[in-house]
């Protein structure tokens, strides 16, 4: 029997994978993919909660999260392409013009 706990654990694991990926990877596109993984992990938990609570709000939220993620993906790719055009790399270790 698959209960809500299973879904939540799955969601938490995926979310943590995303977080770890953001922290250790160096390629901007891979980092961005990890962020998308985080958002989609949250979507799983939203749907699981919505099913568990018999409430539509969670499912509604997922719709909006998906569109927001798509908009973010478009803008993010555009920014990464702009960086690549000027710098010929998307490695974030090379993003070091400004230092404090």
């Amino acid at each position, binding site marked *: 029997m698959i209960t809500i706990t299973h879904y939540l654990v799955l969601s938490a694991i995926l979310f943590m994978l995303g977080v770890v990926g953001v922290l250790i990877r160096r390629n901007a596109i891979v980092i961005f993919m990890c962020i998308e993984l985080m958002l989609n992990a949250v979507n799983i938990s939203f749907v699981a909660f919505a099913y568990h609570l018999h409430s539509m709000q969670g499912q509604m939220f997922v*719709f909006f999260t*998906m569109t927001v993620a*798509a*908009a973010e993906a*478009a803008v993010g790719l555009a920014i990464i*392409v702009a960086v690549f055009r000027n710098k010929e790399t998307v490695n974030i270790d090379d993003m070091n013009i400004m230092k404090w």
Partner: protein
Amino acid sequence: MINYLPILILFIVAVGFAVTNVALSAVLGRQKPGVEKLSPYECGIEPIGSARERFSVKFYLIAMLFVIFDIEVIFLYPWAVAFKSLKVFGFVEMVIFIGILFICYFYIWKRGGLEWD
């Protein structure tokens, strides 16, 4: 469950047919690999350069635009499901929504986002 028996039979036959054919051609066919045969097939023309080239940035642009318009359509599904209960209000809202998408499309078109060159 018994109603699904024909589907199961079809499934088995389909998988069996495919597997049998692949297995037969592997067993019966003669294999003489050569340089020509292993090279990528490009409409019979000699391959030029490596297949691992960098894609043109234009693909990214088209992909971005596609992602946006593709995902926005997601809102049509819940609207269609609840169309009866939303009545005129929902209809007007969706007309406005599609109108905004149309303006975006118009903007991209005029801005030259859809032109390849």
